[in-house]
């Protein structure tokens, strides 16, 4: 069994708490992405699984086994590092073979080692490069060597710490796909740390969003996108990010339909919110705004052409909003005041004090 579970795990470095009371279940053969801004504790969580950091409090299990006190090398895990951490003095072959020879007492026979290196190299198309040193390889090739080194020991759990961040954009897109294919093929558990929400969205079975050492939300990518649990998740996931504005729920029956009053206009609410809060933060994704509507009024600051679509940057009170617009629609002029239409069904409401989602 290769599930990984955090049970109220806390990690402190001196006075700072890197991971705060984390409880998270990673199921067997799941592709779990730990997503969060840098310094949020996601890497620390990953390193605790690896055994590179000790657990201060709580319990960490791999499968059924409690691993708090198990040595890194005895955890049956592999890890791919952001820097790839290839041994510069070893050939690709030696690098891949390294986990098989490092531990003397558990060292497979030479023939088996060769076969496994060959297999791993084949999986990652590295066969032609086996006798080169890492310094002679491109970034993408190095990344694949790191992956090969990870799979060669056939672990139950793969840990990946931002493995794509040193690749250029094009290669990154391609490698994302390869990683997912690899995951399917290996039928192992992947735990993947990144700050890039695109990676998280495209690859994960489930995403765990982490901020300030705390777990914010866990769920499948679309669920997290559709129903962010709090302001942080709402703002972090989605590109361009969700547009936010503070407002008040106008419940007076005299005022007509239920709506959120804001500095730039009113947003209609199709259903009443579940709480009876007065002040809220309203959030709305750029694709749910329509230029030419009449709910809100904003000033166009800039228009970004992306080819297939267009981002219209507007001043919305103190905030800057982005409106997505199809390329074939007429573009507004900079400095123009435009009206925006809002689909009330796609409106997100958050409690400004607790930052939790209320509707």
């Amino acid at each position, binding site marked *: 069994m290769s599930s990984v579970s955090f049970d109220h795990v806390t990690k402190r470095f001196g006075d700072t708490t890197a991971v705060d009371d984390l409880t998270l279940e990673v199921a067997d053969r799941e592709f779990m992405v730990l997503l969060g801004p840098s310094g949020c504790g996601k890497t620390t969580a990953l390193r605790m699984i690896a*055994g590179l950091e000790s657990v201060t409090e709580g319990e960490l299990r791999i499968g059924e086994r409690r691993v708090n006190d198990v*040595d890194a090398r005895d955890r049956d895990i592999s890890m791919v590092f952001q820097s790839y951490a290839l041994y510069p003095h070893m050939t690709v072959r030696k690098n891949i073979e390294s986990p098989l020879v490092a531990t003397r007492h558990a060292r497979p026979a030479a023939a088996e080692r060769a076969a496994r290196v060959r297999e791993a190299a084949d999986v990652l198309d590295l066969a032609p490069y086996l006798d080169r040193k890492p310094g002679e390889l491109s970034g993408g090739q190095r990344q694949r060597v790191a992956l090969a080194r990870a799979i060669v020991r056939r672990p139950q759990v793969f840990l990946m710490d931002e493995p794509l961040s040193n690749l250029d954009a094009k290669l990154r897109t391609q490698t994302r796909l390869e990683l997912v294919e690899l995951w399917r093929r290996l039928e192992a558990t992947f735990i993947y740390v990144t700050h890039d929400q695109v990676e998280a969205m495209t690859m994960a079975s489930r995403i765990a969003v982490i901020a300030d050492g705390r777990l914010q939300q866990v769920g499948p990518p679309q669920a997290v996108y559709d129903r962010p649990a709090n302001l942080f998740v709402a703002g972090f996931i989605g590109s361009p990010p969700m547009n936010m504005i503070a407002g008040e729920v106008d419940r007076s029956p005299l005022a007509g339909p239920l709506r959120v009053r804001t500095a730039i206009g009113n947003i209609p609410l199709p259903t009443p919110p579940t709480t009876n809060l007065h002040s809220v933060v309203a959030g709305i994704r750029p694709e749910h705004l329509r230029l030419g509507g009449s709910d809100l009024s904003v000033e166009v600051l800039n228009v970004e052409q992306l080819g297939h679509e267009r981002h219209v940057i507007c001043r919305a009170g103190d905030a800057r909003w982005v409106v997505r617009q199809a390329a074939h629609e007429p573009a507004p002029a900079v400095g123009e005041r435009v009206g925006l239409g809002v689909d009330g069904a796609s409106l997100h409401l958050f409690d400004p004090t607790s930052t939790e989602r209320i509707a």
Partner: protein
Amino acid sequence: MGKRRNVRQWALAYALLLPSLVVFAVFAYLPLYRLVHFSLYQQSSRLGGGERYVGFGAVWDVLSGERFLQGTWITIKFLIFTVPAGIALGVLLAMAAHRRLKGIKIFQTIFSSTVASSVAVSSVVFLTLVNEQIGLLRNVSWLSLKSPNSALFAAALSSVWQNLGLTFVIVLAALQTVPEELLEAAHLDGYGAVRRFFRVVVPLISPALFFLAIVLVVYGFQAYAQIELITGGGPLRSTETLLYRITKLQKNTDLQVGASMSLGLFGLTFLVALVQFRLLERRVTYGN
């Protein structure tokens, strides 16, 4: 993790450190203790005569005595002869050889070549120049080994030559770290070559120059072979540096004086280290 792992790590750490610690204990700290002991006890000249406590007063007598002060002064003079000249010549050679020219590597190799000579070798080499009888420059009065006023200078010159390679290499390495854009910017700002050198280059390579100064000072304190092979300490003890003098005080009955002087030498090197530390500290603060 866990206690067992920690204990294992401690044991490993000390096992790895043990050889070094043993060597340091036996050949650095034990002798320091013994120097203190020897300086406080006069050894008998008689076989099996033992030793007699003479106390700190005797140590002070040595350290305030003419012999020690004279040796210290000669050592300082040696430093005055070798350190500034060494740095200046190193800078000169490095400035000359730090440029893009075909074959510049050859010149750089030549300038660094004296790294290959030991103090003993360079001393023998300099005999061909300064020896009173067979030296090519035997009649050059400011190099004459015959005069107490110039002999030390002749010995120092051999050191300067021997250190040329090192000084050149260090200054050149420092020059190579000076960003070209900075010099170009200075040029555009209208600085002339001389001002560029003193206003831009020197401040940027000053850490290396400082390092070099320390190294040369340490070498100066350690000067021995050039004295023994070129001047033999003479004439008139005018070239007896502190170390040279100390080495002559190894007989039983001289140990008290020799050990006291060794402690004095230790104090001097300590002083240099202190200066080094302070300046380094300041440099680090400025740097950040």
